[in-house]
């Protein structure tokens, strides 16, 4: 069991082609220990979403395998939760119902437990006053928070988050980053997180994987925790080491291709 902690999620010689388009070229290898917060950073269209979808079971690797806890990942299940790039709350459900939908297919929770969890995550994403509102009545950023809360409420061990904070304003973004980091470390969640925002990457990540442009190749694998520790808070944001790290990473990224 102990070894599974170290190689909890494994990309083993993974490739992916869509018809003639090679998105991921062999060999893509990555070993993610349990409870690690991994951020994917790379130019648009390099294949980050595709990698996440393969972990989630929505796409299949062309060759190679992705293993979770030692066995190849199959179709989607409750162990892997996904927050999609475009916000996808259901228009026929209220905000609270949307969040509760995350637990709809869980048989291990009582209706009461589901209701209180839904409330909890509603509050967490700052939508307490909008529980009864329908998605058509709230802003895009709020809808994205609904989708985030829905996935968190589902309680899966692995979180696959594809540019989840893209539509949020700076302040809300900062708050959710801190919350996400807290939930992740408290509940030992393993997170794959895609972003274009270097600052966000450094603040959140235990480890940053920097990608080349398509076909995706890892051009850097940065151990952020080694330098910043695992405690992330607002003071860190203003610290000197944070700025230095940010400059380093920006240089790496710029040396490959245009980003941002």
């Amino acid at each position, binding site marked *: 069991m102990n070894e599974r902690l170290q190689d909890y999620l494994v990309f083993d010689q993974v490739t992916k082609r869509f018809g003639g388009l090679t998105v991921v070229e062999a060999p893509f290898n990555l070993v993610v220990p349990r409870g690690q917060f991994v951020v994917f950073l790379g130019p648009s269209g390099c294949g980050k979403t595709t990698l996440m979808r393969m972990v989630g079971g929505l796409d299949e690797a062309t060759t190679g395998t992705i293993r979770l806890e030692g066995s190849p990942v199959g179709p989607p299940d409750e162990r892997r939760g996904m927050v999609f790039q475009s916000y996808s709350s259901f228009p*026929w459900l209220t905000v609270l119902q949307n969040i509760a939908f995350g637990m709809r297919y869980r048989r291990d929770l009582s209706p009461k437990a589901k209701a209180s969890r839904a409330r909890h995550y509603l509050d967490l994403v700052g939508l307490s006053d909008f529980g009864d509102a329908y998605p058509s009545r709230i802003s895009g950023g709020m809808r994205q928070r609904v989708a985030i809360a829905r996935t968190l409420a589902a309680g899966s061990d692995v979180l696959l988050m594809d540019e989840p904070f893209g539509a949020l304003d700076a302040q809300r973004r900062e708050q959710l980053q801190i919350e996400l980091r807290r939930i992740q470390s408290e509940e030992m969640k393993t997170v794959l997180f895609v972003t274009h925002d270097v600052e966000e990457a450094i603040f959140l990540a235990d480890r940053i994987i920097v990608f080349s442009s398509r076909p995706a190749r890892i051009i850097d694998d940065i151990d952020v925790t080694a330098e910043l520790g695992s405690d992330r808070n607002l003071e860190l944001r203003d610290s000197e080491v944070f700025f230095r790290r940010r400059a380093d990473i920006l240089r790496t990224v710029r040396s490959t291709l245009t980003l941002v």
Partner: protein
Amino acid sequence: MSGALHSAFAFRGSLSRRKRVAVALGSSFFILLVWQIASWVGLLDPIFLPSPLDILGTLYDMTARGEIIGNALISLGRIMAAFLLSAVMAIPIGMLMSSYRPISAALEPIIDFIRYLPIPALIPISIIWFGVGEETKIFLLWLGTFFQLVLLVVDDANRVPNEYVEVARTLGARPYEILRDIIWRSMLPGLINNLRITLGWCWTYLILAEIVAADNGLGYVIWTARRYMKTDEVMAGVFVIGIIGLVTDQAMRAGHTWLFRDQGTSR
């Protein structure tokens, strides 16, 4: 005044509910008025086209003689029976066709084949199969709507964003749960709109069925009146159908708006 007119005719602009009703009533009244005047001054031969007031009078007499309400209810009953049958079959079949490729591959050619057949061409065979009773009428109506409706349902189901389905899958939903909780809920506004449109077509086939084989219903009333050249009675029957169509359509529109008032303006 010209400012108000200008703003009312803004390209893709909006019009308040009150004004819309006023314009609709005004234009209908205007047409009736022109028609009535044309009759008065002798431009229209009453055998060819009676005046609106004559038709109204005839309609009153026919209603008093008990020729309208009973027959209208019979026609409506036939439509409802056949329409429900079509919908109850088309909705699940269409949803399955949209979800499973082999099912659509198997059914699409048959549906397309029958869809393009003119319904009148199928009257003889349906009389051979079902005689001249209610079954034939229901069958003809079903033929005319089911095959159209099933493709509309497929289209509605196809238009459900794949992302909704994927969200549900990652939350552990199984196929039948996706059909029930996602596809069905998401397609419902579009579906109800299509049901409303299909219901309108039912009247076309109903009249056809009642002309061929019936001794009651509005189609029968119209066809019998025609035989004696009672143009005013023909027009009165037509008028009743138009009114029923108008009322059901508007009611369904209003119901749609109310039912989906929270889901935003899309569809």
